[in-house]
């Protein structure tokens, strides 16, 4: 539904040029909720703004529903934009219009008749739970209600795609949850394709099917959400995950970690396992089978979109032979093993 082919965006020119996006390829299938996560300044907003050409890519193609938007003239582009609803971090509602009239705006722009506007706006207010707010002005609403109005407004032109630029970043956790639920609901009921950008793992975890990780203008990693939360492929991915899970080895241990194994060291590992493995009394079996002692430093079980995910930081105590055998055994059970470092045996 959304396809980016080699999209680059450079602001300015010469030595001060900012390469905000570098050769991005992205394919979001119809009906998917696709997240893009990244640190501040990574290029997230630039990326999503390139999809509806609020920002014109310096090179590359943006193809939505088979139409190459980068090739369209301004009139055709305006028509295409009716297919692309967008919501923003700061809602961007018109203060001079009531809730009803805000939602009606895209229809007015399209030249829809008054009667039809009423017929189309009312179900949207119903869907977003705003029926009793129809005659109020944005200044009278809470942040969550404002974002609901923005969502209703974005849906008014019956788009195929919804673009969300940090849609929940200005909201508290409870309100965030209710807005995410609404987005998921819309995705299911209307089959709407959603591309959302965020810096919050919570958002990705709650509703995304797939996630891309953007760093310094490059899409460095892309995965199904379950896989991303079990085994991020990049260092940045792991940092995001660890920060989100608050699963870091204790500081005292980190200070003692050495990168290379010595003669008298134990490996410290981060284990991630999903599905059936979680229930298996894995650790005790490991101790029995390979003869290593497993000292658990931290452990956590998370549920990510119906999949159970176990995470653990542990020290494997044994001889170099037995510990390496234990690692092989873990991997054979489809457990993602990351060796964080090595600690001196008798420290």
């Amino acid at each position: 539904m959304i396809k980016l082919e080699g999209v680059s965006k450079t602001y300015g020119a010469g030595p001060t040029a900012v390469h905000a996006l570098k050769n991005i390829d992205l394919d979001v299938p119809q009906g998917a909720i696709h997240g893009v996560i990244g640190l501040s300044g990574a290029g997230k907003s630039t990326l999503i703004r390139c999809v509806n050409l609020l920002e014109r890519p310096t090179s590359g193609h943006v193809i939505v529903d088979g139409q190459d938007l980068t090739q369209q003239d301004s009139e055709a582009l305006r028509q295409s934009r009716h297919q692309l609803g967008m919501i923003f971090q700061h809602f961007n509602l018109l203060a001079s219009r009531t809730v009803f009239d805000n939602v009606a705006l895209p229809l007015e722009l399209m030249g829809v008749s008054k009667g039809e506007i009423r017929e189309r706006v009312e179900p949207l207010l119903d869907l977003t739970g705003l029926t009793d707010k129809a005659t109020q002005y944005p200044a009278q609403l809470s942040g969550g209600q404002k974002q609901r109005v923005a969502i209703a407004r974005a849906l008014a032109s019956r788009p195929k795609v919804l673009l969300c630029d940090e849609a929940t970043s200005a909201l508290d956790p409870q309100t965030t949850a209710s807005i995410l639920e609404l987005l998921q609901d819309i995705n299911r009921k209307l089959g709407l394709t959603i591309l959302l950008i965020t810096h919050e793992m919570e958002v990705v975890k709650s509703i995304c099917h797939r996630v891309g990780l953007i760093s310094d203008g490059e899409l460095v990693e892309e995965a199904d959400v379950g896989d991303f939360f079990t085994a991020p492929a990049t260092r940045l991915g792991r940092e995001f995950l660890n920060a989100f899970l608050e699963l870091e080895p204790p500081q005292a241990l980190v200070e003692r970690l050495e990168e290379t194994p010595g003669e008298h060291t134990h490996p410290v590992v981060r284990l991630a396992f999903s599905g059936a493995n979680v229930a298996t009394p894995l650790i005790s079996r490991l101790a029995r089978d390979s003869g290593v002692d497993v000292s658990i430093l931290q452990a956590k079980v998370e549920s990510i979109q119906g999949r159970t995910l176990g995470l653990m930081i542990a020290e494997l105590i044994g001889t170099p032979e037995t510990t390496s055998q234990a690692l092989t055994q873990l991997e054979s059970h489809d457990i993602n093993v990351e060796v964080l470092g090595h600690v001196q045996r008798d420290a």
Partner: protein
Amino acid sequence: MSSAMLELILEATLDTLYMVALSGAVSAVIGIPLGVLLYVTRPGQILAQPVAQRVLGIVTNIGRSIPFIILMVAIIPFTRLVVGSSIGTNAAIVPLIIAAIPFVARLVEGALNEIPPGLIEAAQAMGATPVQIITKVLLPEAKGGIINGLTITVVTLVSYSAMAGAVGGGGLGDLGIRYGYNRFEPLIMLITVAILVVMVQGFQSLGDRLVRKADHK
């Protein structure tokens, strides 16, 4: 005070209101679009025309920097061409309009400046044309600010019209000079000033009320 005097005061008051109303209305009709133009043609704006914008900005600034009393005298030939005379209330309206247009334009531009850029962006994302953005987003969102600017303009026009009156333009300024100053009738002077004060207060509170009605903040 004689009834003839009262009649004179009433007539002068109506003359002032006439000058202010007509020059205010005409300068709004021309100044508002000009202010919009100054805003939408800025670099990066919806109808960016950086060169034309600069030229327009300079012309506007020149208009604003000429002292009213000099403008009034300087354009006498033009005033004569338009209204056929260089004295009287109609003749005073011409320089009033010319002075107020750049004033209104800058105030409107300032009001538009207060609109969060995200609103324009949201409208663009909805597929709005530049004209739709002006009529459906910019003007309604800046309505309070524009009314506020027009209130300031009208209040300024009240005092400018008194100045115009002093050089034969009619109205309260004319009356104040002719009777209050030249014939030294302090009561007339006092009454003239009092009426001007009431007028300014009235316009200001009317403007404030309209702004409150327009703003839903």
